[in-house]
């Protein structure tokens, strides 16, 4: 509804709409006219209101129309609003809105003040060598972190408001001369089509832009680090920042991204290659070790070396559970400990470690409830899983699924399950990019940064799997 010329009417209407005690209705007089400054106490900088709005207004003599006042109060973020719905949304965003009696328009001043967390190193992406800055919950701060790194006019930021109630700021960021237009258009369309009451975190957006909603596997990349997002944008990906979330999303997503670490590009290439191989092996062990161990015990004794088999036989003597149930319950206990250790306050964390490792582990073995090899296998699998922390969600579920299959039908079931997984993953695409690229489909040129990475100066091209507009990222000397 349009604002009325009468301040009383406007105030009454706004008071009804904003019936909340943290909204301040500050009455004042400009020359002889009655005026009202409307703001949310918790979102605005009251010093700025005083210095930039109220103090200059006191000096006003004569002309007190909206245009004159906007000129008088030089504030880059000020806008004129005509609608009471706009007044409400501007107020709730953290602006101060000035309404003047006899004027059907109001002026909104950007005097936002949010308390946000300092820029710290993200706990999930700690590095020994490389930048330690991490995104915060403020989209502005996050954009500033990016802008500081990408100083080109081609760096585009497109902002959206998503969430009927939360009106969350969402920004897509990309390099307009590199990122594929198809991906940008599709992402823009998908974000615009989100019709939900609220967006609380970037993971909400991820779920809406995923191509297969029911998939177990990730279809959007995530990062908490501006250097990583910058590198991804430089490769031709599009980033999504969401206000209130320190996690940025990137599309298109390739599964192998999660085996890559920012540190790979900062440290010695040989060491990076070794680390990548270790990550691949670790994740394979994490997913398959419990299931192979159980199926070997239940169905395929011949694949266990004789001496190890004798050790197993010795250690499982008197254990009341079958190998499959034993592994299942050990896995269950591990998941419980894992879940509890995340949620539990830090000061009881130590106690949890003692209870988990000593009481449950050692005592269970001594009491003959579980065997030592099972505990060892589970511990190894649990540790290995965290070499690729971004994949923990899907891989821990796969581990459980494979364990059930291995315990029911043995190694053949496991092989069939792997075949199933391969077919499923090869058919999984997001933004027309197969998640298993550059391995399936095989993109030979992209393998320079695949399971093995070549030296950074040799990565002359951007990943073709991402369909960048400009494929060349480096000037080659002999060209």
């Amino acid at each position, binding site marked *: 509804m349009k604002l009325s010329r009468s301040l009383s009417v406007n105030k009454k209407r706004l008071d009804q709409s904003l019936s909340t005690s943290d909204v301040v209705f500050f009455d004042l007089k400009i020359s002889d006219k009655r005026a009202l400054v409307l703001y949310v106490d918790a979102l605005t900088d009251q010093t700025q209101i005083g210095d930039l709005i109220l103090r200059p207004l006191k000096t006003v003599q004569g002309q007190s129309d909206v245009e004159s006042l906007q000129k008088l109060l030089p504030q880059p973020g000020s806008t004129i609003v005509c609608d009471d719905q706009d007044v409400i949304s501007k107020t709730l965003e953290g602006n101060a809105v000035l309404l003047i009696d006899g004027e059907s328009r109001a002026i909104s001043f950007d005097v936002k003040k949010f308390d946000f967390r300092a820029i710290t190193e993200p706990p999930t992406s700690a590095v020994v060598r490389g930048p330690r800055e991490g995104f915060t919950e403020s989209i502005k701060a996050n954009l500033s972190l990016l802008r500081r790194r990408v100083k080109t006019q081609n760096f585009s930021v497109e902002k959206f408001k998503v969430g009927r109630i939360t009106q969350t700021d969402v920004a897509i960021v990309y390099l307009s001369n590199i990122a594929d237009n198809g991906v940008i258009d599709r992402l823009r369309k998908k974000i615009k089509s989100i019709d939900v009451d609220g967006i609380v975190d970037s993971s909400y957006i991820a779920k809406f832009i995923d191509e297969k909603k*029911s998939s177990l596997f990730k279809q959007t990349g995530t990062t908490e680090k501006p250097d990583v997002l910058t590198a991804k944008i430089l490769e031709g990906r599009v980033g999504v920042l969401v206000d209130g979330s320190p996690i940025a999303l990137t599309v298109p997503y390739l599964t192998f991204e999660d085996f890559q670490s920012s540190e790979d590009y900062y440290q010695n290439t040989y060491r990076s290659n070794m680390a990548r191989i270790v990550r691949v092996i670790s994740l394979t062990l994490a997913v398959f070790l419990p299931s192979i161990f159980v199926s070997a*015990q*239940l*169905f395929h*004794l*011949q694949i266990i070396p*004789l001496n190890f*088999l*004798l*050790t*197993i*036989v*010795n250690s*499982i*003597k008197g254990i009341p559970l*079958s*190998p*499959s*149930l034993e592994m*299942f319950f050990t896995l269950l206990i591990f998941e419980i400990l894992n879940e509890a250790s995340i949620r539990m306050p830090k000061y009881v964390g130590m106690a949890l470690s003692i209870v988990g490792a000593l009481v449950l582990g050692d005592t269970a073995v001594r009491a003959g409830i579980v065997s030592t090899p099972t505990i060892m296998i589970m511990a190894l699998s649990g540790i290995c899983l965290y070499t690729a922390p971004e994949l923990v969600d899907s891989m821990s579920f796969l581990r459980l699924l494979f*364990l*059930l*299959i291995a*315990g*029911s*039908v043995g190694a053949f079931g496991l092989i069939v399950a792997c075949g199933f997984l391969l077919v499923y993953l090869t058919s999984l695409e997001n933004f027309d990019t197969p998640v298993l690229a550059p391995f399936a489909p095989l993109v030979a040129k992209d393998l320079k940064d695949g399971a093995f990475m070549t030296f950074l100066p040799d990565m002359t091209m951007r990943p073709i799997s991402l369909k960048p507009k400009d494929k060349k990222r480096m000037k080659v000397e002999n060209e």
Partner: protein
Amino acid sequence: MKFLKNKVVLFLLLVLAVLYFSSDFALIDIEKTAIIVAIAIDKENDDFSVTAQIAVPQSTDNASSNDDAIMTAEGTTVLEAINNIGKDTGWHPKLSFCSMIFISRELAQEDVEHVVDFFMSSEKVQNSAIIAMADDKASDLLLADTPLDSISSFALQKIVLKNEWMVSTVGVTNIKKFAFMNYSKAKTAYMPVIRIIKGKTKGGGNSSGLSPTAAQSGSGGEEGGNKKEEVIFSASEIALFKNGKFVGQLTDRETLCYYLLEGPVFEAYTSVDVGEDGYFLRLDASSFSVDVDVKKSTVKLSLDMKVVVADSTSGADLKNFNKKADVDKAVLDALVDSTESTARSMFAKLQSIDADLFMIKDKIYKYHNSLYERFKDKPLSRYTLELNFSARPAD
């Protein structure tokens, strides 16, 4: 459609969970599984008596006795006897770890072809399992207490299961190799003969492999009141089979000679006498051949040995002997003479039993195929032997 898909996935997960938690789905209970590591097959009247040695953790512990891990059963076939082991004890006999199979001399004389056939055709026994003939009863080998290992078959493995190319006096044959030779054109196969050597240890000769520790334990065994006498084993001779039947046996020197000719053998030991002095020699026989001249009916055996004197009774300075130029020509000549005479005696033995151990018929078939039909029935006795042996100091 999507709803149906979800239902199918849910149903499959449910089936999987039921299968998993029901836990009796054709699986193996390790605790009730008899992991058979060796079997000995004897012939008792018309039945087969199978003695199985089982690797149970207690038995691998030194404190327990070898007898704890032995089970015996009889049957009209080998398979029936093995199954009877399970029937009598309640354990599931598992043959996938069976790495040694011993057959008794009596059975060998009768026929081992069908025993080998059974193991060859069974998917559950590895064809790489070593097959050997006991000098007497096969079960005696598994029942013997030996200072070499608390499990007798593990002790036997130490003797028999060596890297083939490094073998000095032990002839190794596995199931596949035996069957392969037995069904070849030559129809001749061999396997080592395992002999039990009781109690004491001897210097050199057959028991040269015994360590001082083992020798001590061996003598210690004799002191125990009820304790069985501890024994050691020898496997330096090979038994010859024609059409699956035992037909003869090579002596240890003949066995070594055969191995040198079928080589390569990079390290073998033998002794020669020159006058009154004895020399213990280390041989490297990497140049060898067995050829057949079909038209001349000649079998030509060639062998070039590189020799190092490892020990001597003449009190000679070994440092000098180890030098290339200083190996006495007389020692080399004596070695060549002794090896040639062993080869002749071996060939004569093979001729007398018509055992084509050098697979001459196969060589004719492969390299002179057009002549095979003409020569396939020609007995070995109608071939003459030609030797070309030489010895030189090692580089």
